[in-house]
């Protein structure tokens, strides 16, 4: 930050005299008193406490429904941003509390808070930010426009909370409790038995499917689509179960290309770790329940297209279960959110990649053992690559088997 810009002020005295004062922007910055938004417009919750005892917090802007991760140090600075303490005061308090100060922490946090409308000043639009950062890059503008076009394909309703509450009261609550867990366990066990029985005659079961491939494909797609919606609805019901707000429900292109339903349960961050884990795992369990049920139904159906279709759908549900719970490869599916919460490392993917890319080689040269956190980061990246490699090899083996066989 170039802090050499000066403003000349004339301050008049009481007896007709005056004083001239030059104020450098750096000086003014130290006297700047960051003012957070009104207390009833934000909410702060502790998310996790890591191995060093450091907490991680989520700060919610209730007006815009935006959420920010804050470290314990940032959370301390946030508490001081009451409009009365200057940046200089905040820095002094910070030093007294933490006994050291990287001054960049304060401007970086101010910029972050301004970006989330949590301070009284606002940043420019996202497009302006991107263009400002990369003015020479010709690819930025088309990329931003393309992303915006994809974002426009999102169909969502932000007025869904009451409907989820109604659905919860009308029976959704039965999904959350010991009886539901017991029923799912029993269903899964029976489904497993049925699946193993069907597996013995898998070829005979599957043959009728090949007689009506178009019908099988369309019906399969429709069913998968419906179960994806059910998956998201159960996430929303779990959110309601823990007393938080469902912010939106709709259809989008996941990662810009994968058609998918979505439910916005970000508000669950404001509750306990248990609530977040249950909410994350509730959606994938829909696929387990449906997969087990479909295997059971297929087991009792007579041979033919319907049995083949139901058995194939059961298999697809198991794939959906595994895909949802897959935590690696920076995809941030439900499985990722679960391990993030269990490990207490909210920025696991980003930190892992940064550590492996920039610091791992240096750490290995030091010939000192990695800390627990560093081992987790390294393991996350390693398992991401290994799982992709496994998928590629398994697909290749399957293709060879199909072609040769």
């Amino acid at each position, binding site marked *: *930050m*170039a*802090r050499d*810009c*000066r*403003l*000349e*002020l*004339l*301050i*008049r*005295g009481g007896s*007709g*005299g*005056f004083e*001239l004062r030059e*104020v450098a*922007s*750096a000086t*003014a*910055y130290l006297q*700047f008193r*960051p003012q957070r938004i009104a207390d009833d417009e934000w909410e702060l919750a502790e998310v996790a406490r890591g191995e060093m005892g450091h907490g991680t917090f989520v700060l919610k802007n209730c007006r815009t429904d935006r959420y920010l991760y804050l470290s314990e140090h940032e959370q301390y600075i946030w508490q001081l941003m009451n409009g009365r303490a200057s*940046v200089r005061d905040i820095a002094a308090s910070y030093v007294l509390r933490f006994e050291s100060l990287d001054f*960049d922490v*304060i*401007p*970086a946090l*101010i*910029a972050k808070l*301004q970006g989330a409308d949590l301070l009284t*000043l606002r*940043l*420019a639009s996202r497009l*302006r*930010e991107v263009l*400002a*950062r990369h003015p020479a890059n010709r690819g930025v503008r088309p990329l931003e426009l393309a992303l915006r076009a994809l974002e426009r394909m999102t169909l969502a309703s932000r007025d869904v909370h009451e409907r989820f509450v109604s659905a919860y009261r009308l029976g959704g609550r039965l999904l959350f409790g010991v009886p539901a867990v017991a029923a799912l366990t029993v269903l899964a066990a029976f489904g497993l038995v049925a699946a193993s029985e069907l597996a013995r005659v898998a070829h005979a079961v599957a043959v009728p499917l090949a007689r009506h491939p178009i019908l099988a494909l369309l019906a399969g797609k429709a069913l998968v689509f419906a179960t994806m919606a059910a998956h998201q609805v159960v996430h929303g019901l779990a959110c309601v179960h823990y007393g938080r707000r469902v912010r939106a429900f709709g259809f989008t292109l996941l990662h810009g290309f994968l058609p998918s339903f979505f439910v916005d349960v970000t508000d669950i961050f404001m509750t306990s770790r248990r609530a977040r884990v249950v909410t994350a795992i509730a959606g994938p369990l829909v696929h387990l329940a449906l997969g087990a049920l479909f295997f059971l139904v297929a087991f009792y159906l007579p041979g033919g297209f319907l049995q083949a279709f139901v058995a194939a759908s059961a298999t697809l549900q198991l794939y959906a279960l595994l895909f949802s719970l897959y935590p690696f490869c920076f995809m941030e599916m439900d499985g990722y959110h679960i391990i993030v919460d269990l490990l207490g490392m909210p920025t696991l993917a980003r930190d892992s990649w940064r550590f492996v890319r920039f610091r791992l080689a240096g750490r290995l040269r030091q010939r000192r053992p990695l800390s627990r956190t560093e081992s987790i980061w390294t393991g996350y990246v390693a398992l991401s690559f290994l799982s992709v490699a496994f998928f590629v090899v398994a697909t290749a083996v399957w293709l060879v088997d199909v072609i040769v066989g």
Partner: protein
Amino acid sequence: MTTAGDLAFLRTVGVFAELEATHLQELAERLRTRALRRGEVLFREGDSGRELYVVRAGTVLVSKSVLGRVEQVLARLGPGELLGDMSLFDGAPRSATATAESDAAVLCLDPEGLRLLTEASPRAAAAFFFQLVRVFTARLRESGNLVAEVTRWGLEATGLDVEESRGR
């Protein structure tokens, strides 16, 4: 206001530079000199007044009220520079305050003096107005630069340095 030194001074003032000696002499006789002590206010923002001033000696600060007793200094004018010219033409209240930064002297031209100059020599008047337009143009450019500078100051003073903070 008819000494050789005064006439020589008027020759150095951009807006009068093209006037012929006789017209300059007539103009000089219509100008009034006003001495200012350090800190004395020549006119205040919001005052009425239609005189144009030329700084003869010392420096004059042009400032605009910001908050309470605090004003932002817009310009520091030295010998040969003009102030008050906007009200001479539009008759609107003064847009800023002029204060002597040091003991100073200014020459005052009222609208009547300008009218006589225009009637006496249209060519001299054209030269005067042409130079005045150049002064206005230069000020317009300075105003644009000042807006950019003040905006930059604001960004830096509040930490709202978008480029740096996003690239960090």
